């Protein structure tokens, strides 16, 4: 009665399938800008992971006799007003920058992705509820929100991460929701449903790959701006409390001494520039790689 009607014999050669991540890295290496971005990001990652081994001096060691020294072979980036070796502090500061930047963006992306998919693919009431929450959170000015949260919870690394998550999650949620809504009504999703795919399969296998690329790129480009936000908060005196060597704090201290010791501001700015450029180049390169239409074959 219900014998398979369109059956086919299985045979033939093994298909050529490359490992996806492998091919991605190969393509990344073929793109000069992407390669530069990757190297800069790897440099920052390296500093963050091995900070305690590669700093030439203890970044917390106060050496008043050596204070306010301009860059030299002994102190590559000079010293600050209490004699900290700034180069060591810059390297150690990459840990804070990475935790704030990468961790908070990763958390926001995960939260935004879940909320956005639920809002876009789920029932109407869920969409409205999620949208209301997202809009409420989004309507606060970033710095005001940060000030409020820091006033209540006190300023430390976790608070900063929390602020970023509160502020970034709605952004990603809205983006994911919009893309999901657009995908949901597209013909190929309908075709998949007609072939028997269930909701979870459609979300994970078909909608997600379509929106993950742009989201990834956006996230990687947001990492530097979050690091800058932390620097800004530290600059306002609201960031991670001293003596933690955050880049924003180094900038802040340098700003106060800009006429006496201009190298401090420069030393605080260089890692920010390197990180920003690194993640931005990497992000742009990834965007080109992840979109099959823009993809250049290696």
């Amino acid at each position: 009665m219900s014998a398979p009607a369109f059956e086919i014999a299985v045979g033939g050669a093994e298909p050529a399938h490359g490992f996806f991540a492998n091919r991605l890295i190969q393509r990344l290496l073929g793109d000069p800008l992407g390669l530069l971005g990757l190297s800069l990001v790897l440099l920052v990652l390296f500093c963050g992971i091995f900070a305690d081994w590669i700093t030439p001096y203890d970044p917390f060691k106060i050496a008043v006799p050596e204070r306010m020294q301009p860059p030299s072979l002994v102190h590559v980036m000079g010293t600050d007003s209490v004699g900290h070796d700034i180069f060591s502090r810059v390297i150690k500061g990459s840990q804070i920058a990475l935790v704030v930047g990468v961790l908070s963006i990763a958390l926001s992306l995960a939260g935004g992705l879940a909320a956005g998919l639920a809002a876009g693919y789920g029932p109407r009431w869920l969409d409205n509820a999620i949208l209301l929450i997202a809009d409420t959170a989004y309507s606060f000015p970033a710095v005001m929100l940060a000030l409020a949260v820091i006033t209540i919870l006190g300023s430390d690394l976790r608070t900063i991460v929390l602020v970023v998550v509160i502020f970034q999650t709605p952004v990603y949620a809205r983006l994911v929701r919009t893309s999901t809504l657009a995908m949901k009504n597209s013909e190929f999703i309908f075709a998949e449903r007609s072939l028997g795919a269930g909701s979870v399969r459609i979300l994970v296998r078909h909608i997600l790959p379509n929106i993950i690329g742009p989201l990834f790129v956006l996230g990687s480009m947001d990492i530097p701006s979050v690091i800058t936000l932390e620097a800004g908060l530290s600059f306002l005196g609201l960031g991670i409390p001293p003596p933690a060597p955050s880049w924003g704090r180094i900038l802040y201290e340098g700003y106060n001494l800009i006429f006496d010791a201009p190298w401090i501001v420069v030393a605080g700015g260089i890692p920010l520039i390197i990180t920003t450029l690194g993640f931005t180049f990497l992000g742009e390169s990834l965007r080109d790689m992840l979109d099959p239409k823009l993809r250049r074959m290696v």
Partner: protein
Amino acid sequence: MAADCVLSVEGLAIDFLTPRGKVHALRNVSLDVPRGSIVGIVGESGSGKSTLSLAALGLLPENAVIRGGRVLFNGTDVLTMNKAQLRDLRGRRVSMVFQDPMTTLNPVLSIGAQMVDIQYRDRSTGAAQKSQKAAAMLQRVGIPDPEQRLGRYPHEFSGGMRQRIAIAMGLLGNPELLIADEPTTALDVTLEAQIIHLLRQLRREFKGSILFISHNLGLIAELCDYVVILYAGEVVEQGTVHDIFHRPRHPYTEALLVCDPARLDDVRRDLPTIPGDVPNLLQIPTGCVFAPRCPKAFDRCRQQQPTDHAVGATQSARCHLVTP
């Protein structure tokens, strides 16, 4: 019609709720798809062709209301199936090929990934076997070098190739019924001929049934065994291809055949048309739906709705003129 039917629609009536009112998209539609046959559905835009095919998959949009009738697939009513039964039906028993091959494949997944993924229900084989099966199916639908092509993305294929891939994806689940909703409308004539040739070949080799939806009479005549003529949500006439093309009994069918440019004997400046418009489906006129445009209409047509009248063993028409 025939006793052993894969799909048999009985008195199906579907409304769409719209801001302007209820659109009576299908009214009292009955048709059968005998096992192993190709049934063509002909109709103008908005005649309910697509609604009918979506009903067969249980994929009607949310604003559709089923007012009556049944859609029996192997004797089970699709309209009362639960979600699990519907998922089991789609892809494995009934597959669908859509109109525009440029938009029916996921743009960011390679076709191999999509073809392997759609076999997720088959837990007995590994990924390698699944992609072998995908390659074999691509070969089957006439795509050369299938192993190499599996790693390619949809945009790297032409429209005709993509439609072949879409057909291959539809066939991967070994369905008993393939619904092809205007599969060649978006393609140019050469490719159209190739796709039709492919469908015929597949039917011959696989003995499945095909529900072929089109507004192209030439394709229907070439491909199908049975023809169903839809007009404004009603089946006005159905029968074998021979019945419909040689002995049409409904004035609408006659008019359609006269208007088919391929069947014109002489070269004319003006193509023949059917005067008037398709009735507004928000307010169905009393009497016969075709009466306002029918050259043979008489008083009774405007007052009383005709019922289906059998003409011979295989043909029936919903027209007062056919009354025995």
